[in-house]
């Protein structure tokens, strides 16, 4: 109880002191040290985030986050509610652009290309950086149409009367793509005989895997997942977890989760955000869960805080 009170008081202080740039917070007045978040790994960074700040109106939601995300691995983002991890995730494919009050500063590079460049092509960016949301949100269309939606809208698959008349009908390609994407999302076995059924008739777990398949059909390099299993039962959750581990062989997966066991099970590296929108520690998952550098992170992981 006293911890909570302390946190609250300290947060207050921090809000007033924020302009001075002094980063002190938490119950132990612990300062985030540069070394805790300066995680190094072998190989290239798929995403390179530098000094990222996000404001919603006057609220400073994400503070000076820098982080490199390695290729073909699972990076978990954990932290208490409202710590800015979802905000951070939405910055990676510029979904925050859709929120009118949001303002983003800093730099995010995808394969050394700045995505916040004023001339960035959002369509191309979101084709390369796909996203899966917290609650399953398939379109009220058939399973097949859900999966082929992205490619069709991008003009990669052409169908219909005109396409047929000019001999550009991609119906076969569409079916191959649907089959391949559903197989990748481990859903093919369950729905192969009812592709024309409405997707809303699937169970929650199936819907979420369909959303993953829909995301894969566009051919992304990075997949962002915002608590993809939080609305699902344990069995569906474990299916999603297995799927994430499989996906990491070909894709770079960044996953936000509230469930620390889940993060420990499936991720290769873990970033811990704590109240106030700060990245406190970022390292190999084993290191974070067994021997974190920060006292606050240890408290959070062992359940004393948050």
């Amino acid at each position, binding site marked *: 109880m006293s911890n909570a009170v302390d946190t609250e008081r300290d947060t207050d202080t921090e809000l007033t002191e924020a302009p001075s740039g002094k980063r002190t917070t938490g119950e132990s007045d612990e300062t985030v040290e540069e070394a805790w978040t300066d995680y190094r790994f072998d190989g290239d960074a798929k995403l390179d985030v530098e000094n990222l700040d996000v404001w919603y109106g006057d609220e400073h939601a994400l503070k000076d986050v820098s982080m490199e995300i390695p290729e073909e691995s699972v990076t978990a983002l954990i932290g208490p509610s409202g710590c800015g991890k979802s905000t951070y995730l939405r910055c990676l494919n510029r979904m925050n652009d859709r929120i009118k009050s949001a303002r983003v500063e800093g730099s995010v590079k995808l394969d050394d290309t700045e995505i916040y460049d004023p001339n960035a092509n959002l369509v191309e960016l979101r084709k390369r950086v796909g996203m899966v949301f917290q609650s399953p*949100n398939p379109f*009220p269309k058939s399973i097949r149409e859900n999966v082929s939606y992205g490619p069709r809208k991008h003009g990669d698959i052409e169908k219909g009367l005109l396409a047929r*008349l000019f*001999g550009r009908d991609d119906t076969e390609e569409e079916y191959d793509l649907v089959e391949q994407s559903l197989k990748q999302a481990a859903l093919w076995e369950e729905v192969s005989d009812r592709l024309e059924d409405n997707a809303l*008739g699937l169970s929650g777990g199936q819907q979420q895997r369909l959303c993953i398949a829909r995301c894969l059909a566009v051919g992304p390099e990075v997949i962002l997942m915002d608590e993809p299993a939080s609305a699902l039962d344990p069995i569906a959750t474990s299916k999603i977890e297995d799927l994430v581990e499989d996906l990491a062989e070909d894709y770079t997966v960044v996953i936000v989760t509230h469930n620390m066991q889940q993060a420990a099970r499936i991720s290769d590296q873990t970033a811990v955000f704590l109240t106030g929108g700060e990245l406190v520690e970022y390292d190999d998952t084993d290191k974070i869960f067994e021997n974190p550098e920060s006292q606050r992170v240890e408290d959070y992981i062992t359940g004393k805080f948050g």
Partner: protein
Amino acid sequence: MSEAYVRETTLVTDDSDYFERVLDGTVGLSLVSFVVGIAALADVIALGATGSELGRPLLTLAVAAVGGVGVVAICDRLGLVSITSQRATNAATGVVVSLLALTALAFAAEMTLARLFGITLLVQAVAVVSAGAASRFDVADTTPDPSAGLLAGLAFGAIGLIFGAAIGGSLVGFDSTLLAGVPTWVVVTLASGVGMTVVTVLPREDIGSTLPAALIVGALGVTVTTAAVGVGWQWNPETIDGGFTGGVVVPLFVLFGSMVAGWAASKARAGFGARGRQLGAFYVVNVNAALIVTVMITIVVFVAVKGIGYAFHGFAIGALSGLVVLAPLFVLALQWARGPAGTARWNSTVRQLVRVTPLAAVGALAAVLLGVLATGRTLDYPFTYTVQVNREPVVLDTSLAITPALEIGNLLLIISGGFLAVYFLRKYGTLRNVGNKSDRLVTVRRLVPRAIGGLLLAGVIIAILGRSPAGIPLSETVGSGLVLAGALAAVAFTVSPLAAVGFGDGTRRERAEQAARVVSVSLFSALGLLTTAVLLESLSGANPSLGPVNIVPVLALVATAAAGCFALICALTLRKTDDANLRRILRNEGTLGLAAASGFVALFGLHIALTQAAYIAGPVRIGLTGSLSWPMALEAYKPLGPQPGGIWPAVVGTIWLVTGASAFAVPLGVGAAIFLTEYAEQGRATALVEIATNALWSTPSVVFGLFGAAFILPRLGGDESLLAGMLVLGFMLLPLVLITSREAIKSVPDEYRDASAALGVSRWETIRSVVLPAAMPGVVTGVILGVGRIAGETAPLILVLGSTLNSTRAIDVIGGFRFLNQPPFIINDALTQASAALPTQVWAVISAGVSGSPSMGWASAFLLLTVVLGFYAVGIVTRTYFRRKLNYE
């Protein structure tokens, strides 16, 4: 705290006691007097009727009540239905007993209905006040509150004021004064009002809510019984025009009195207190709701009774045409009957009956039609209708008839066949991912669309060059050859799946499975090719024939037969199949076969429509005019004929008005809704648009009409015109479409937009492919309800469309188009002419007075009402359909 709170109440009462039975009976009596009161108000039973004139309708009601209650009671005894409510049982008994008693009184004593009403009211008053007394003196087991409450007190006080003024005034006269020049009736009024309030508020609730009610009902009862206000009574105050007659006032007294008595009796029945208030309110609210339904039903029935005879004079249909019309109905009834089979909801006899009834009705009709065909004798129902000739009503004989005519109109074929084809295509899933892929199929899939395109191109070329440019008989040689080739290819494509399933290696089931891929490609290609062939025929004017026989319709019939056979084989194979996957494939193949067959039938009709040539096969004739005759809706007015004809011009006018207005308002409204919801920043500007929209929606229609007459007409040539009518109705439709579309688009979850954006899809594409389809139910419902409203709109049309009584010619919009070789290149004279429309037709008959035929006006009103209610029904069905489709119910 009153002693009532100390008393214990029982949780479950096994049987009702006399107190409760009498009160339930009173509720039944008040219901009876309410219903009979409405009948008297509507002049169904005359207020002055006596003896058998009064007894007979009452006896009818009594017999109906005995029958209804009796059947339910017998079913209850037999355990078929379970009536557990003591109140319902008692009230039903009360209804039966009161009706029987009233009937007996009517026959035995020579009393008028008015006096009978008075006695009824007195009985109710006595019952109510006895209940209050029984409760007050603890004879009955009740739980009253200390007071009936201030609200009831004020309500009764207000009624007391009115009663005091009326009764006091008429007893002592409105001229007499008390001391100091105060009019006596004012004192009586005030005393009565205050007295009623006091009597209601001060005593315990049981007295407080029964005594004032009984006083009011009793006063009404005495007034009516003593004929102080009776049959011949009339009051014409000098201060107002017009007056009140007994014929209106007595039924109103009865309605009001029985409602008050029913309320008090219900309250007493539940033992007063909270339960009593609940039951009293329940009674009043339900009677009110019933009153609203009664009003609606009365209007519809009244108009129908007045107009239906004229509307259906001379209605006749050939038995064969009837069967064509029945085909879609049969399919719909079949689907309705199949609906919930196997679910828990199916396990009820009543539900099964409800499900099966339409199917049985269709079957019965079909049997009758076949009977007419077999015997070759006309089946008719003769009746009479009146028309106005030289201001004198003339009764004409006519009949509803089913004739054994072997003629079918092509429009019927197109509508029925087209509907069935679309229906089956929607039921058809897909045959993909089954069977084997082969190169030949890929070739066919690539070639057929090109062939269709080529055929169409050839038709356009011939249409541009003329049929025989420079003496070359282009249409007879090339055109006919292409048409023939297209139709033959279509037949070949239709026969091929039949051959694939019918003959070949392996069992029929194996062949059906292997043929799956061939089926969809073949049948779709066949439909496409035949459609093109028919269109090409019209474009090029080619008409390939073999001697006197036209080849295309024969080929269309062959294709129909082949597709039908194919569907039949699939159905037969399906019966012997257990494998789920194979069953699905077979079902899909069969559905597609049926879709193709109905499509070919529709194309057959289209061929006749485009070539304007009837097709005669033996005794059957399929032509431009069918055997459906409906003078009222399908013929124009005949000024000099023995029969008056109908209002076809008005029907056509309304169709064009609605079409034009929708074509103009729906895209604008939906577009504006999309802009406001998806693109515009929410702020002052959107708020302003919203206010403007709502104001536009509330603008009286006659103002729209004035605007049209003063602003649009001068800019369209100055005369009343169809185009102006379309524009004005479009303006009226616009706000409703905008409002409903906006609500529908707003209610589409943001998750869909997020999901689409995260896939990199642009905002417009998202709106087009996700948001609008999801908002479709709301948009379509709004459009249909709006169209229903403007279809019946009269005032603006009188101002801008012109009102023509009994027009003899329908406006020809399609034929009115003319092409020019100078701007504006295309004009339409029909659009700038005045036209008739259903609502203005009704108005014209009314305003023309006796010189028009009133029964024609009623018939037009009946058709108009049917059209508007039809739009409303379609709106409801569409909404349900889209909701089911979207929510996967």
